[in-house]
């Protein structure tokens, strides 16, 4: 009895440890310094967005009447006034506003990417799996939608139905899934001739069940990589619209809106109003791109 356990244990210790795709990928990812640095920066930015509003001495819509009218002098970043990032032209605390804008930008990026992941993957997988005429029609539709200058339609949408965060999500969601659908379809085409799919078909599994249970999980690696790269482009979309003054509405703000505010005031010697949001924007996007690249190297080794 005793001997048996010992041999069992030593057998377990000697056995080569199985390495799954995911643990392999994790190891490769954490060996990539740029990707890990990106991850740390992202975590810091997320932390800033979450607890920034709590520790800021000022609220993001509260006007500091003491600095109003002389923002160039009194609204500078300083520890004494509690305006760590200075104030904007209306005397509102820039630290609190940047934290709030970061929340919105991250949220838009993540939600846009999630819509793309969910809808695009399913669409692409269905098109790729069924193939033939269904595929032709579905992908032609994607081609058609892609050749429309979407930003204009999105702006039209925002103007016609009123500006709201919900509308922004719907509009951005409308664009974001197209690329994802193409990628998912391409991968599905390669997967559908694999033996495990054949086995599922042979045992009479319903096509939609095959897609959801067998195809989609195998697409995950590619999808995760692409979704990470999609988040920054969603943030850019949102910032673009907010830069034009058509995005989130005051007093809410976002990176794009803050950059716009700072850019329109920079001739008045209030350069910090541009530099802080710009710094967060650039750092955030860099981090997303590095993490995305790191994930691609980790999950898709054949691509290198």
């Amino acid at each position, binding site marked *: 009895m005793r001997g048996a356990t010992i041999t069992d244990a030593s057998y377990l210790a000697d056995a080569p440890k199985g390495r799954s795709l995911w643990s392999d990928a994790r190891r490769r990812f954490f060996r990539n310094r740029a990707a890990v640095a990106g991850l740390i920066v992202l975590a810091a930015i997320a932390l800033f967005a979450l607890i920034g509003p709590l520790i800021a001495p000022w609220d993001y819509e509260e006007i500091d009447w003491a600095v109003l009218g002389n923002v160039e002098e009194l609204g500078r970043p300083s520890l004494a006034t509690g305006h760590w990032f200075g104030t904007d032209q209306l005397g509102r605390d820039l630290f609190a506003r940047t934290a709030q804008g970061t929340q919105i930008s991250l949220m838009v990026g993540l939600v846009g990417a999630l819509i793309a992941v969910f809808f695009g993957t399913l669409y692409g997988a269905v098109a790729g799996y069924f193939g033939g005429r269904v595929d032709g029609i579905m992908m032609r539709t994607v081609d058609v939608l892609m050749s429309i200058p979407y930003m204009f339609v999105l*702006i*039209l949408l925002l103007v016609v139905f009123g500006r709201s965060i919900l509308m922004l999500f719907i509009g951005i969601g409308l664009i974001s899934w197209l690329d994802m659908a193409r990628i998912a379809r391409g991968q599905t085409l390669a997967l559908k001739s694999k033996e495990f799919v054949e086995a599922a078909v042979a045992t009479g599994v319903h096509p939609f069940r095959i897609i959801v249970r067998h195809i989609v999980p195998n697409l995950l690696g590619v999808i995760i990589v692409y979704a990470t790269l999609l988040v920054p482009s969603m943030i850019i979309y949102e910032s673009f619209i907010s830069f034009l003054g058509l995005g989130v509405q005051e007093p809410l703000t976002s990176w794009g809106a803050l*950059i716009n505010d700072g*850019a329109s005031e*920079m001739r008045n010697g209030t350069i910090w109003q*541009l530099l802080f949001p710009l710094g967060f924007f650039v750092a955030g996007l860099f981090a997303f*791109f590095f993490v995305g690249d790191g994930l691609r190297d980790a999950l898709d080794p054949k691509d290198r």
Partner: protein
Amino acid sequence: MIAFVFRRLLVAIPVLLLLVVLTFVLMYAAPGSPFATERGVPPAVLQNLEREYGLDQPFIVQIWTYITNIVTDFNFGPSFVYRDQDVNDLIAQGFPVTLTYGTWAFVLATLVGGSLGIIAALRHNTWLDYLAVGVSVGAQVLPNFVLAPILVLIFTLWLGWLPGGGWQGGQWQFVILPVIALGTSFMASIARIARASMLEVLSSNFIRTARAKGLPQRTIILRHALKPALLPVISYLGPAFVGMITGSVVIDIYFSTGGIGQFFVASALARDYGVMMGITVLLGALTILFNLLVDVAYAWIDPKIRY
């Protein structure tokens, strides 16, 4: 070839129609009359206004009139806000400006980006390669609306070399910053794509064969490697064009160049549906036309595509 172009054209027309119908439905579905003001308009006046602009007609009649006016007279209809202007006036005023800096940005982005990428691939893992990769990674996080304020900050406020806005009939000082702001991120993307595809081509079998035959490096690159390496770049030109058209809105707003984007955003803020729709349809048509050109160019260069 002609049959291929013709077929693509046949596909382009429904796409364009779809865009017109889509924008028209959006406008039609818009809550409230475009003439409603804060103070309110007497119903009789509103009725007269709607009759004058043909908005009392049934939907089908309206959209039919709109499309036929565009097709037969190139008339994009009136502005709903400015009584004395129609969309054609605004296009005539703004489009040449957009076209000028847009063309410069597009040509420069393609040429500079393409050559940068190819040189980087040929000098793989040298400082030139690292420089090109660094530039293209950096430019990724500097979209036009971020780059524009930075450029103005450096070249206008600190160095005082170039004006930070205005157009002045397109004098060169006024064109430089818009072109750089608009073109840089696309230049970087093109460089990245060109580098990647050139590297792939250089390691492919037919290049090895060419080397084995003892062809000089110049011939290998110019005769054999360049053409296939440029194919992905060409297919990227379509999305790049769309991106630049969109980016022109930012350029127009930020540099006050008076291009078509300025009218678009002004009309969006004033809820001037007539102008918004006209510009969307015009730019949509341009985009679709350009994508068609890209497709044709691609089919012409790529021997694998049979048409």
